[in-house]
């Protein structure tokens, strides 16, 4: 039986819950400058390895005829041992006497810069290793540049492999002087440059006896002096909306407070859009009491006093201290994509929960991350840094990075994958905004949604207008630009000269689609209710409106039901022969073969029908690449 004794005390220090809060530290540096060896040694010397781990790795090394190295402790996957490099961001936990740490062993291999970014972005401090013998290399500089972009401010440089340079102070000094100057140009400042020999554990936890000239701290002493990341609770409130929940009668705005704090009774403004309401309650589960305040990092479940339109992506703030709203800004970007970043190309821009299309309007300069030299160009290769003008297709809420880092940075995505990130340096003033003809996308940007034409077809009395009216009401209440074009209304106005012949019906459909096109052109979601019995006429309408999203809704009610309702008394008249060519009685109705929405009124309630139409509108508009929710 594979049992183990758990109760036997070991020397590892026990921690109280208060100092249990982990600090995330990233370990970076040029390939082969000793990061994995350092981390392995750190784990060993702080007594943080599970029992038997060292023995297991030593045994595996013996089996494969390799000399044991501390780096192997981390290299858990076969491929890594084959290539002798760390592939991906490994997270290892260890404890000093002071507190607990999560250490992120970021890779140094050039190909895996994206993993270094992933690791460093979640760290509150960084250890950067430089090989004393090799000195400052390409990745030493590149990693520092990325740390400055990612906002990691606490940095300690470890001058490693001092054993290979006879523990020589002059060699150490030369590296320190050269590299401090480089860091200064990035606005970074290393708290310490510590000379170490990770392989032998010198100045890692234990003080080296071979470098008596070093009077500063060991690595663990330096780590214990790091402060936790800044608390952003003192900043203005930024609550990006993650979702709106309607699981029961409550309508809950869900989101995480990214900066500042929120309380019931606070007045909120949601940007873009600018609608205001007041926080009524927090709906914390399991209750019975909810929090009195939700601070930075807290997930909030908010109900509002007024039923205003809110959607994912908007940022709630206090009206007295709002984010900027705009669609054009200057940014510094780091690019990790296999394909180069291209000027004039459109990407998806993700900022908090906002997700919009954005074009790289201009690449202003491309900076070599290791030499800091700048050049011009229209395409930016992988692992480079550049300054660009970004123009989103619609307004977004943001801050400048130096005002509020968390709302002043974004990721760029293409094909569902993140390829780069950036920080916002300046807003572009209005005078640089486009001039000339107002475009459809500008109208869409102002409305907050693209237009669409929703065409309700079906027999007289099938319920087209009733459903359309309810859909209109829902969209209107959701602050959408919506209008209804009713066939009966047209018949007494624009179509007053038309009868019921096939030719007149075709003309009626043509006129209705022209009217719908005008409304859609102004950015409206246009609901048309017209029998339009002939498939050919409907196809022409669809073709005429090809510039817009077209949703055909077939309101499919059995003739007998329509006739029994006969709200307008038309069926009775038709049966008496008082109306010629009445659809369903004396004129054919060609049912649509592939409508976007098919409502069988004998099987679907009115409410369900409305939901079906709304979700089709929602889906089609989302498919156009815009966040949109009814």
């Amino acid at each position, binding site marked *: 039986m594979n049992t183990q004794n758990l109760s036997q005390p070991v020397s590892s220090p026990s921690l109280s819950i208060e100092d249990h809060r982990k600090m995330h530290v990233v370990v970076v540096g040029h390939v082969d400058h000793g990061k994995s060896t350092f981390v392995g040694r750190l784990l060993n010397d702080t007594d943080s390895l599970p029992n038997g781990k060292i023995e297991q790795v030593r045994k595996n090394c013996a089996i494969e005829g390799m000399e044991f190295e501390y780096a192997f402790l981390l290299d858990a996957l076969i491929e890594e041992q084959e290539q002798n490099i760390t592939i991906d961001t490994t997270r290892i936990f260890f404890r000093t006497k002071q507190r607990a740490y999560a250490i992120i062993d970021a890779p140094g291999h050039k190909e895996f810069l994206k993993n270094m970014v992933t690791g460093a972005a979640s760290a509150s401090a960084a250890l950067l290793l430089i090989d004393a013998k090799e000195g400052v290399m390409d990745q030493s500089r590149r990693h520092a540049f990325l740390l400055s972009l990612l906002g990691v401010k606490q940095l300690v440089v470890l001058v490693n492999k001092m054993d290979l340079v006879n523990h020589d102070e002059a060699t150490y000094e030369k590296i320190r002087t050269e590299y401090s100057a480089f860091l200064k140009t990035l606005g970074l400042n290393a708290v310490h440059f510590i000379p170490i020999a990770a392989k032998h554990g010198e100045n890692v936890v234990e003080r080296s006896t071979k470098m008596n000239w070093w009077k500063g701290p060991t690595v663990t002493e330096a780590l214990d002096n790091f402060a936790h990341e800044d608390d952003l609770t003192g900043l203005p409130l930024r609550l990006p909306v993650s979702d709106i929940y309607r699981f029961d009668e409550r309508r809950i705005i869900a989101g*995480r407070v990214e900066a500042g704090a929120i309380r019931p009774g606070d007045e909120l403004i949601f940007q873009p859009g600018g609608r205001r309401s007041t926080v009524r309650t927090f709906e914390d589960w399991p209750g019975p009491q909810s929090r009195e305040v939700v601070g930075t990092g807290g997930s909030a479940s908010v109900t509002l006093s007024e039923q205003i339109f809110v959607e994912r992506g908007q940022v709630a703030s206090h009206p007295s201290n709002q984010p900027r709203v705009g669609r054009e800004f200057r940014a510094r970007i780091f690019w990790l994509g296999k394909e180069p970043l291209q000027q004039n190309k459109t990407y998806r821009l*993700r900022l908090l929960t906002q997700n919009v299309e954005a074009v790289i309007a201009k690449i202003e300069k491309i900076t070599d991350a290791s030499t800091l030299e700048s050049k011009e160009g229209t395409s930016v290769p992988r692992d480079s840094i550049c300054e660009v003008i970004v123009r989103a297709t619609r307004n977004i809420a943001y801050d400048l990075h130096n005002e509020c880092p968390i709302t002043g940075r974004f990721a760029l995505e293409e094909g569902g994958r993140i390829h780069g990130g950036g920080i916002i340096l300046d807003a572009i003033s209005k005078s640089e905004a486009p001039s000339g003809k107002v475009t459809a996308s500008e109208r869409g940007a102002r409305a907050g949604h693209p237009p669409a034409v929703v065409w309700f077809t079906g027999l007289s009395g099938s319920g087209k207008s009733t459903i359309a009216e309810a859909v209109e009401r829902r969209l209107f209440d959701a602050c959408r630009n919506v209008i209804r074009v009713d066939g009966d209304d047209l018949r007494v106005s624009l179509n007053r000269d038309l009868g019921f012949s096939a030719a007149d019906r075709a003309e009626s459909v043509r006129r209705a689609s022209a009217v719908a096109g005008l409304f859609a052109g102004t950015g409206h979601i246009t609901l048309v209710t017209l029998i339009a019995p002939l498939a050919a006429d409907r196809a022409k309408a669809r073709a005429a409106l090809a510039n817009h999203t077209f949703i055909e809704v077939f309101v499919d009610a059995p003739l007998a039901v329509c006739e029994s309702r006969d709200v307008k008394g038309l069926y009775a008249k038709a049966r008496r022969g008082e109306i010629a060519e009445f659809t369903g009685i004396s004129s054919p109705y060609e049912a649509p073969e592939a409508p976007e929405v098919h409502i069988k009124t004998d099987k679907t309630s009115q409410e369900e029908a409305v939901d079906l139409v709304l979700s089709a509108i929602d889906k089609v508009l989302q498919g156009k690449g815009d966040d949109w929710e009814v």
Partner: protein
Amino acid sequence: MSRNAQNDHLTRLEQTSIHVFREAFANFRSVCMPWSMGKDSNVLIWLARKAFCGKIPFPLLHIDTTYEFPEMYEFREKAKAIHGIDLIVRVNEDAIRRGIGYSTHDPVTVTHELKTVPFKAAIDEFKWDALVTGIRRDEDPTRAKERWFSPRSAEGNWDYKDQPPEFWGQFASTAPEGGHVRVQPLLEWTELDIWEYIRRENIPNPTLYFSRNGKRFRSLGCHPITHPVDSPASNIDEVIEELKLTKTSERAGRAQDHVGRNSMQELRAKGFM
């Protein structure tokens, strides 16, 4: 501990996990949460209820190997009622008919046949594009490389050599064609965090975790290959005190992890959780 305290370690972990749950639900068309009924899984249920204000808005999936401890089946029914769980249960009946079992086959084969195969079949059946898992980075070295949102191919493979970057709270928001995304809200938690949170929130769990006759289970799997550890810890407080001192690994009692040097990696590359 004050419920308003935002800065304590457990609350920070909890709030981050809630954010991960919410982003997953907002981003994906169809979410499912596999449920092992173990402690991590039960913490996930609790966090989901917090994220969605009491209601879990997606189904849970139990892959029943038929080798669960009897107490686990009792616990399943109890927890289902407490949390109002919409539960899907799947068994690989075909493998059982073919006589696949621990008395005749090695643990890696049985785990593959009775867990991974029906798991993949359920994904094919329900077309989920996001699966919430209870994976923690501290469990096993291969898991240390995981992301919050981890895309899997249609074959369920994990391309750990070319993972998408993940920073500033921006996750991989689309599943690969025909594949899905693993959503891992417990990534930053440790075993000790899990138990301290269970104690703080009073989350229901199977009593197999507590010592009987000097032994307790630290990790629960199929009964023929899951072994108890020597431990006098008979309640949550004692378990927590024990974990603060231990240096043995959590999954030491899980036989399928120890068959070959890289058995865990092989299992995971084939789609094991």
